[in-house]
């Protein structure tokens, strides 16, 4: 390896800054600010979901509305294999199983729908959450005679445990997103997004690429679901398969802009913070939870109308204009 040819500045930006941020985040809980850790758990959850969503839907343009389905599968993996009473597997095994089951399910869903036109995929994934919710309700109530389940919670510092699990999953998600983007695969995905027929003629096995990428992105959603179940303790199908969990990552990714990896991250942090503030707010004695969703919808429509390529591209455009002017005057 020729060290002289490495562009140090570029390496620092692509590898150094994320590493520094990761290290800072890793030491964050030691500071002892418990509310901050809770808040960051919330951020990390949505960052993972929206980056994972972007891995597939951002590049190919196939809109997946099934995030909540895979997330819920992960939650139920934890509910079955990590219950509060009885035998349980170690948590990392449960997380891996959640990811694996989501991977397989997404693979099946993709194999059924992704060889067809994009609209079938959107239609199919939209109802998937409802499908799982009803079928699990039926199984639990008719066969098992229960409604919900209890997940084991390690009494020693739950918050930090969840935090570290989420942090590792987030780092992996970002890494995979980055590697896919850089690889031959990423180029194939981008080709599919721009012109699927042309990509097929160039020799890309389009169905395989789409189905595999979809399954990879779903496995992160499953993993994060298994972790969050240990935080929530009680889960039932209504909690696990909540359609909002499908919709939020989409809005966050679009608002941030899914042209880059940082877009969804910024969108997720902004929106989960707004959500956290509004759902806990008690201004003027009004419950703001519903208002949050109305605002959420309004911002989604406004973003589609006025900012279709997201906040990051807006910032980049402004930045380029500012920099360009300075250079021109020099």
């Amino acid at each position, binding site marked *: 390896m020729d060290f002289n040819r490495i562009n140090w500045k570029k390496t620092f930006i692509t590898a150094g800054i994320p590493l520094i941020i990761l290290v800072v985040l890793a030491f964050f809980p030691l500071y002892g600010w418990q509310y901050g850790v809770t808040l960051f758990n919330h951020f990390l959850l949505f960052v993972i979901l929206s980056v994972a969503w972007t891995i597939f839907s951002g590049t190919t*343009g196939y*809109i997946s*509305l099934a995030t909540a389905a895979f997330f819920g599968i992960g939650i139920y993996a934890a509910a079955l294999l990590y219950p509060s009473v009885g035998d349980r597997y170690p948590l990392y095994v449960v997380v891996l199983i959640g990811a694996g089951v989501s991977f397989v399910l997404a693979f099946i869903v993709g194999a*059924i*729908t992704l060889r*067809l036109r*994009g*609209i*079938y995929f*959107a*239609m*199919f994934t*939209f*109802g*998937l959450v*409802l*499908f799982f919710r*009803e*079928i699990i*309700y*039926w199984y639990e*109530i*008719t066969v098992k005679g229960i409604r919900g389940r209890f997940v084991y919670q390690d009494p020693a510092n739950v918050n930090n445990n969840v935090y570290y699990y989420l942090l590792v999953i987030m780092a992996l998600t970002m890494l995979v997103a980055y590697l896919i983007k850089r690889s031959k695969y990423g180029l194939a995905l981008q080709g599919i997004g721009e012109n699927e027929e042309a990509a097929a003629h160039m020799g890309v096995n389009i169905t395989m690429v789409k189905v595999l990428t979809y399954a990879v992105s779903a496995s992160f959603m499953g993993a994060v679901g298994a972790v969050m179940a240990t935080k929530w303790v009680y889960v039932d199908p209504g909690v696990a398969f909540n*359609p909002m969990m499908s*919709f939020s990552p*989409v*809005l966050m990714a*679009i608002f941030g802009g899914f042209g880059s990896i940082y877009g969804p991250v910024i969108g997720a942090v902004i929106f989960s913070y707004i959500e956290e503030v509004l759902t806990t707010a008690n201004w003027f004695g009004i419950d703001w939870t*519903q*208002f949050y*969703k*109305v605002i*959420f*919808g*309004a*911002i*989604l*429509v406004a973003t*589609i*109308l006025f900012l*279709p390529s997201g906040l990051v591209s807006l910032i980049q455009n402004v930045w380029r204009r500012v920099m360009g002017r300075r250079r021109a005057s020099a």
Partner: protein
Amino acid sequence: MDLFLNIVLGGLLIGGIYSLVAMGLSLQYGVARVLNIAHGEFLMFGAFITFWLQQNNVDPLLTIVIVGPFMFVVGFVLYRTIFTTIRLKSPNPGVFESNGLLAAFGIYLIVQNIARLVPDWGSTPHSYQYLASAVIIGGAPFQENRLVAAAFAVAVGIIFYIYIGRSRTGKAIRAAAQDASTAALMGVNISNTLALCFGFGAAMAGVAGSLISICYPINTVMGLQYTVIAIVVVTLGGLGSIPGSFIGGFILGVVGTAVSYTKWLGTDLAVPSYYLIFILLLLLRPKGLFGK
């Protein structure tokens, strides 16, 4: 025999309403090119307007005359403002479809949560009594209100189908469904025609909601389920085929009722059974029963 009659007739009765809901979505997707995820929310809103008027002593069947045009205007305005802007900004139809879907999704959130904010609506179920006496058909009792609701749903569907087939506007709609840009070149005011379709779709959802409120309890979160049903029916009948949606609605109604009546399965499995149909359809015949 009684059970069989119960399933078939009961299925056809609810199927009439499914047909109407699906016809609305078929217009919105087949012609106006918006996969309207908020479709069920229009239905929910229609149901609640009827409920509210009924509480103020208006005959529920009369409210259709109010709900239909109101929803039409809402749909028309939404399309002319939001979706037309997106359509004109989109570089190709694919981008319009996905952005339209996402905008519809924003509308879904807005409508549903505004409905939940209305003080008396909340998240608890509401119902009222209307024509609740039973009619015996072939030995099986049916509530009068279900018969009336199904008859109205089918009547609205048929009237609309005739309107599309015979009128000048209907001709424009059919032309736009085949090829929007060529229709525009032939002198069809395309933005208006597409908005009309979207408005008609919303009106059908609203009317279906009114009819549902006559026979079943309603709540603010019921919309999603009907959107899923409409999506499955529209795929079953073939995207954009109005007679297909009409027949698909009846098929789904019978299947759902059969599952609900079967021992061990029950109402909870109705939606999963629709999904099973959806999966089989995508595997075997993705273009639907009547698709071209």
